[in-house]
């Protein structure tokens, strides 16, 4: 890769408001030559890419989180500030800052540019979305703006082929100047602006606009007309719920075929390894431990991708901010911020991206409250367990004249139980631990835009990479540990019971049995819950092992359902369902909470409160069901 003579390639950073098309510009510059990593010590994602300039220079680009000001308000914005100011000890400040401004919304965007200019660092101003601005009749004199600001100004259209060519040439020019000039790594003289400074910036922007914008153009009337419906108190909320309904339909319907494919591939790989390797610990580790374990997580990739497809499209169109607007008051009833909507929505696929998405909430108490309830949303890993137990215990009786079946109704009730309990927990948290006012809502509603397929595709590609990397590292390691616990020590000579009973996992299960007996759990369930700690859905596979079934996939589900129906009572099954609504059985979630909250305190609190809820709910369910049935 290293074709360079100098040690490090020049680095540029993209800075701009949220919604200015910065990420589209980043994608246009770098294409697929980009990767996402984390900044050391913080959990903010660091998007880096590179491109080769017209003069053949290899340039590294950093896409910084969008911000309205250098006075950082959230962890994401702190990263932007620290990178721009060169405060990160791990990396030098960028050689060149490319300020990206939405040309259709110059007044708001130029404010940040004026603030950045004060830093005295090399800057290029990219007037993005120039095509949209021109279409609105907006006339900006780029040369006059450049003269007034004292920085190069280039119009760009990130979504058009060749739309970034002027910017590339300008970067080349700036780089040549930078290498000529002596290195001036003077630490930036930046101090937090007072309200008086901010008013002065504002005056400066007004002056720039007066001098350089001949015609501000028409405001986005189409957006206003659409919003008249989509932000309507009645139609708007109805539309939002329709969108959510379609999204959940899609998560299950679209993902089904690829999930079956992955399931088939995993089974095929397992069979192949089983047939190729001699019987022994290695074969067992590979098939039962690694392939089955990692496979059981990778199978959720299609659902996660469908969910993120919706989230990315809704975000790119500008609708997600509207959803937060519509729900702010309703969620405020339990003390949550409107922005909590997005993390909670993501948590229906998996709590891990949900907890990570809570970063967009600036206030720490609001953010923690959202993180703490995210795992109560029914994630897709609970589905295999729900499906199994419903198939085993709930008769397929049509209700309301065949409109809904009893199994569907039970499934809906389980989802509703998760949502309602999450709202209740949020309410209690905001009344006790996180007392006080909510963070103010001060959110731009960007003009509606058509999403650009390339940006959506690159976003999905990133999500898939991050998810698979996790399955290949954390979950891979956990699966090996779990396999070890479930396999050693092996069954003694002449053992009649399944081998797992004699293993460490079996011993733990038996030890837990007296504790779980009051809520109706058998020792088999207790054993299944031990490896289920790694990932909820693994419990299904373990139950299959205990009931000595050798099928896999759908066949396992149907025959296991029969075995369970024969050996468990209905109160036990209901109690286990109640347990699964609440139980914190996911090491991945707890570890991401630890990472996001920077310590063990909150994951421990989460574990304790959820397991208490789970035990209480199971206890009540079991007792009530035993008394009634």
């Amino acid at each position, binding site marked *: 890769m290293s074709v360079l003579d100098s040690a490090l390639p020049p680095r540029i950073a993209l800075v701009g408001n949220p919604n200015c098309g910065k990420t589209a510009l980043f994608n246009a510059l770098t294409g697929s030559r980009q990767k996402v990593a984390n900044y050391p010590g913080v959990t903010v994602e660091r998007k880096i890419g590179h491109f080769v300039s017209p003069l053949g220079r290899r340039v590294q680009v950093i896409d910084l989180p969008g911000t309205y000001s250098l006075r950082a308000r959230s962890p994401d914005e702190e990263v932007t500030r620290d990178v721009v100011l060169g405060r990160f000890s791990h990396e030098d400040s960028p050689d060149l800052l490319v300020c990206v401004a939405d040309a259709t919304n110059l007044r708001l965007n130029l404010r940040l540019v004026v603030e950045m200019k004060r830093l005295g660092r090399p800057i290029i101003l990219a007037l993005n979305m120039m095509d949209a601005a021109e279409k609105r009749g907006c006339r900006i004199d780029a040369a006059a703006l450049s003269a007034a600001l004292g920085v190069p100004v280039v119009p760009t259209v990130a979504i058009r082929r060749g739309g970034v060519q002027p910017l590339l040439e300008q970067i080349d020019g700036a780089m040549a100047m930078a290498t000529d000039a002596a290195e001036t790594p003077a630490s930036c003289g930046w101090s937090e602006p007072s309200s008086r400074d901010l008013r002065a910036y504002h005056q400066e922007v007004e002056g720039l606009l007066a001098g350089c914008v001949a015609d501000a153009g028409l405001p986005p009337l189409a957006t206003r007309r659409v919003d*008249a419906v989509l*932000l309507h108190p009645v139609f708007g909320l109805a539309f939002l719920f329709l969108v959510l309904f379609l999204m959940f339909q899609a998560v299950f319907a679209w993902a089904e075929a690829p999930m079956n494919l992955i399931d088939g591939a995993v089974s095929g790989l397992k069979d192949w390894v089983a047939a190729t390797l001699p019987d022994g610990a290695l074969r067992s580790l590979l098939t039962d431990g690694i392939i089955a374990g990692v496979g059981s997580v990778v199978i959720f990739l299609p659902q996660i991708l469908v969910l993120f497809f919706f989230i990315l499209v809704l975000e790119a169109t500008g609708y997600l901010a509207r959803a937060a607007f519509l729900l702010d008051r309703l969620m405020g009833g339990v003390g949550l911020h409107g922005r909590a909507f997005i993390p909670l929505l993501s948590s229906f696929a998996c709590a891990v991206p949900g907890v990570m998405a809570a970063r967009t909430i600036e206030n720490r108490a609001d953010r923690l409250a959202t993180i703490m309830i995210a795992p109560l949303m029914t994630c897709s890993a609970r589905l295999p367990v729900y499906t199994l137990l419903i198939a085993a215990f709930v008769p397929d009786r049509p209700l309301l004249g065949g409109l809904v079946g009893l199994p569907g109704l039970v499934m809906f009730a389980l989802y509703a139980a998760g949502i309602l309990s999450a709202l209740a927990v949020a309410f209690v948290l905001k009344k006790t631990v996180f007392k006080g006012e909510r963070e103010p809502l001060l959110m731009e509603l960007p003009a509606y835009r058509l999403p650009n397929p390339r940006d959506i595709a690159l976003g999905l590609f990133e999500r898939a990479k991050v998810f698979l990397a996790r399955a290949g590292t954390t979950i891979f390691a956990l699966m090996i540990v779990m396999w070890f616990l479930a396999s050693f020590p092996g069954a003694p000579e002449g053992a009649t019971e399944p081998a797992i009973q004699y293993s460490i996992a079996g011993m733990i299960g038996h030890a837990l049995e007296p504790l779980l007996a009051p809520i109706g759990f058998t020792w088999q369930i207790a054993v299944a819950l031990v490896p289920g700690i790694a990932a909820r859905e693994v419990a299904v596979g373990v139950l299959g092992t205990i009931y000595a079934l050798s099928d896999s996939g759908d066949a396992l589900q149907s025959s296991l359902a029969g075995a369970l129906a024969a050996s468990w009572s209905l109160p036990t099954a209901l109690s286990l369902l109640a347990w699964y609504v609440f139980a914190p059985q996911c090491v991945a979630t707890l570890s991401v909470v630890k990472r996001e909250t920077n310590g063990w305190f909150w994951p421990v609190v989460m574990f304790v409160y959820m397991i208490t809820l789970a035990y209480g709910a199971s206890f009540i369910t079991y007792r009530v069901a035993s008394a009634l049935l």
Partner: protein
Amino acid sequence: MNGHPTPETGQSPGGRHLGELKKGERARVTGVDERGVVTTLPEGELERRMIEMGLVEGSHVEVLHEAFPGRDPIAIRVNEHTLALRRAEARAVLVAPAA
């Protein structure tokens, strides 16, 4: 709606604030004064955020949309862009009828 008891914000007698404007009303911002608004933020922070989002003396505002229930939060046009905020915090923005 049930609104605010008395429009007694800051020291401009008879002045109105953004939080009490109805849908469709237009106004001009005459000042930002966060006193009397309860927030989680440190002193001076709400004022600075308002200015950063374009709510500064001289800006033209118009209430475009109201959410449900309680007609809160509101979406307002600020010069060329659109901003969502709650009525409680909008009290910090003092307004006068559009000229």
